[in-house]
C-alpha cells in the first residue's frame, strides 16, 4: 500500500515509517500539515496516518480540508489525547479511525490494514464464508459444512466482524470498539472470554482451526 504519514515527532515518524516499510508498504513521511494537504490532494494514497497536533495545519483541519476537496482516502488519527470528545471530534471531522499514543506498532499495523483494504464501494454481502464456515447474514444462521451451529446474538456479532476482516489481524481494542462499542480498557478478560466461547462452538469440534490467536496482538480468521 502507499501510505502518507504526517507526524512532526521525528522519532515516532521514523519508527512508524520503518515499521510500515518492513511490512512491505511505500511510505511518504511529512512533518507539516500544510505540505500534507497539497501532497495528499496531488497523489493517490491508500491510507493517511495523521497526528492530531501538527505544525502548519492541525490534523482535524487537514482532514476537513481533504474531505471538502473530495479526497476520500481513509485517515487514521494518531493522538496523545485520550479524551472521548477528542475521538468523537476526530471521527466527525471525517477521520476513519483513531489511535492513542503510546500505541503498539502491531495495533497500528492492524488498523492500517483494516482501513486500507476496505473496498471503495462495497456491494453488501448476504453471506460470509471462510473454508467451510458459512455465516448467513440474512437468516442469521451459521454452519460449518453440514453442521448447523447455534450462535447467541453476541457471538454472531463477534464472528461477523472477524469474518468481514478475513486474513487481517484484528486487535483486542478493535474488537472492543467495533463489536461492543466499548471505548475503555476493561479490567476483566472480556475479549478472551468471548473469543474462547466462540471458538468452542465454531472451531473446537472441527478439524481445521479458522480462528487464530496472534500473540501479543489479537486474532485473525483464515483457512
Amino acid at each position, binding site marked *: 500500500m502507499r501510505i502518507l504519514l504526517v507526524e512532526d515527532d521525528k522519532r515516532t515518524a521514523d519508527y512508524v515509517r520503518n515499521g510500515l516499510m518492513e511490512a512491505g508498504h511505500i511510505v511518504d513521511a511529512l512533518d507539516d500539515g500544510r505540505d500534507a494537504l497539497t501532497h495528499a490532494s496531488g497523489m493517490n494514497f491508500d491510507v493517511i496516518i495523521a497526528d492530531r497536533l501538527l505544525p502548519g495545519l492541525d490534523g482535524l483541519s487537514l482532514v476537513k480540508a481533504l474531505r471538502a476537496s473530495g479526497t476520500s482516502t481513509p485517515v487514521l488519527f494518531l493522538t496523545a489525547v485520550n*479524551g472521548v*470528545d477528542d475521538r468523537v471530534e476526530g471521527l466527525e471531522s471525517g477521520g476513519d479511525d483513531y489511535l492513542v499514543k503510546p500505541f503498539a506498532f502491531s495495533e497500528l499495523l492492524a488498523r492500517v490494514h483494516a482501513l486500507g483494504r476496505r473496498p471503495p464501494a462495497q456491494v453488501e454481502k448476504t453471506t460470509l464464508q471462510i473454508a467451510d464456515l458459512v455465516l448467513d447474514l440474512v437468516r442469521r444462521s451459521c454452519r460449518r459444512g453440514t453442521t448447523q451451529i447455534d450462535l447467541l446474538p*453476541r457471538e454472531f456479532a463477534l464472528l461477523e466482524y472477524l469474518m468481514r476482516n478475513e486474513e487481517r489481524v484484528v486487535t483486542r481494542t478493535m474488537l472492543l470498539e467495533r463489536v461492543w462499542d466499548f471505548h475503555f480498557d476493561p479490567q476483566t478478560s472480556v475479549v478472551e472470554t468471548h473469543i474462547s466461547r466462540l471458538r468452542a462452538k465454531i472451531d473446537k469440534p472441527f478439524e481445521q482451526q479458522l480462528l487464530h490467536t496472534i500473540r501479543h496482538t489479537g486474532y485473525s480468521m483464515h483457512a
Partner: protein
Amino acid sequence: MRSGILRSTPFRVALILGTTFLVGLILAGIVAFELVEHELDRRMDRSITDTFNVISQSYGDTDQADLVDSVQSHTRATLNHDQVYALADADGQIVSGNVGAMPAGTGWIDLPASALVISAPDDPEYRIFVGSVGGNRLLVGSSFNETHEIARLTLTTLGWSSIAVLLIVVAIGGLMARRAQRRIDGIAQTMARVGHGELDARITLGARADDIDMLAHQVNAALERLGALVEGMRQVSVNIAHDLKTPLNRLAITVESALGAESKGQPVAPHLAQAELEIQQINSTFDALLRIAQIEAGARRARFVPVQLATVLDKIADVYADVADERGQQLVVTHPEPLPEIEGDRELLTQLCANVVENSIRHCPPGTRIDVVGRLTGDRVTVTFSDDGPGIPPEEHDKIFQRLYRLDKSRTTPGNGLGLSLVKAVADLHGARIELAQRDPGLSLAMSFPVRARPLTDR
C-alpha cells in the same frame, strides 16, 4: 482609584442628575421671574392710573386751585422722587409737582430721570402717564426702583438656592458614589487577588441584597466552582505524580536489570517484556486519571442525549454474563422494559456500569451472585448493583470512591484504584445519587438518575 472619581459610574450618574436638576431649576426660575416682572409692571400701571384718577377728580368745575393742592399734597407725601407728579397749565408752564420738565405728548411714556430734570442718584428709569385735565396737563409717574429691587431679590434668591442645590447634589452624589465605588473597588480587589492565585478570596456581601450584591453573589458562586475545579486538577496532578512515581521507579529497575543481564551475556527479552507490561500499566493509570479529570470538568454535559438505561444494562449483561460465568459467578440483570429515558452520555454510562460489575467480578469469589436491577423509583431511574461477596467494611465506605484508594486486601489483585472514582465522576456528571449499603453478606450500590424532563429542557 481616587483619581478615577470622574470615571466612577455612580458619581457620573449623580453629576448628570444634579446638572439636569439645576438646568430645570434655572429654566423654572426664568419663567417665574418673567411672570413676577410682568405682574409688577401691571400693578405699577394700575397704581399710576389710580393716582391719576384721584388727582383729576379733585378738579371740579374749572377750579384749578383744588387740582394744584391735590398735586402738591401728593408731592409732599413722596420721598426721594419715588413718585413724580407735575401739573402744567394751558401755556405749558409747570404750576405744581416735583419734576423740572414736562415731556411732550400724552399717554404712557418710559424715560430716565434726566429727561424729567430730577436730581436723583443713579438716574433711575420712570414710568409716567400724561393726560389732560380740563385744559391742564397732568403727569403722574413712578420710578422703576421698587420693581427692580424686587426683581433683583428674586434673582438673588434663585441664584443662592441654585448654588445650595448644586452643593447638596454634589455632596450627596459624591457620598453615594464613594459608597458604591468602595463596593466596586472591593470586587475589583477580590478579583485581583483571585488573579494572583488566591482562589479562596471572596467578595464581602452587603446587607441590602441589591444588584451589586446579586452580582457579587454570582461571582462568589463562580469562584467557588472554579476553586473546586482547580483543587480537583491539583489533586489529580498530585495523585498522578504519586501514583506514577512508583511504577516509573519499578520500570527504571527493570531497565537496569536488563542492562545488567546484557552485560553478563544473559537473555534480556524477559526483562524487556516486563518493562513493556509496566509501561502499559503506567499508561492506563495515566489515561484513567485524565479521563476522570475530563469528566469532572463537566464539558461532556453539552453532548448529553436521551439514553435508555435498559439498553445499557442489556449490553452489560451481554458482555459480562460469560465473563462472570467463566469465574464460576452468576450475573443476573433485570429491568422492566423499557425504563423512562434519562439525559446522559451512553458511552460513559456504559463504562460506569461496566466498572461496577467488573469490580464485583474481580473482588468476589466463585459462587457469588451479582444482581443488577434497573427500576423506576418516583421520578428517578435507580440501578442497584448488589453481590453476596465479601463486601466492604462500613468504615471504608466513604473512601472507596477516592482516587487511587484500594482496600488493603485488594492491593494484590490487579487494578489501578481508579475504577470507582470514575464511577463517582460519571454519576456526579449525571446528577445521580449513590448509596452504598451493607448486605449480609455482600454489598449493594444503588445509583439513581433523574428522569429526563419532557419536553427536552433547554439549558
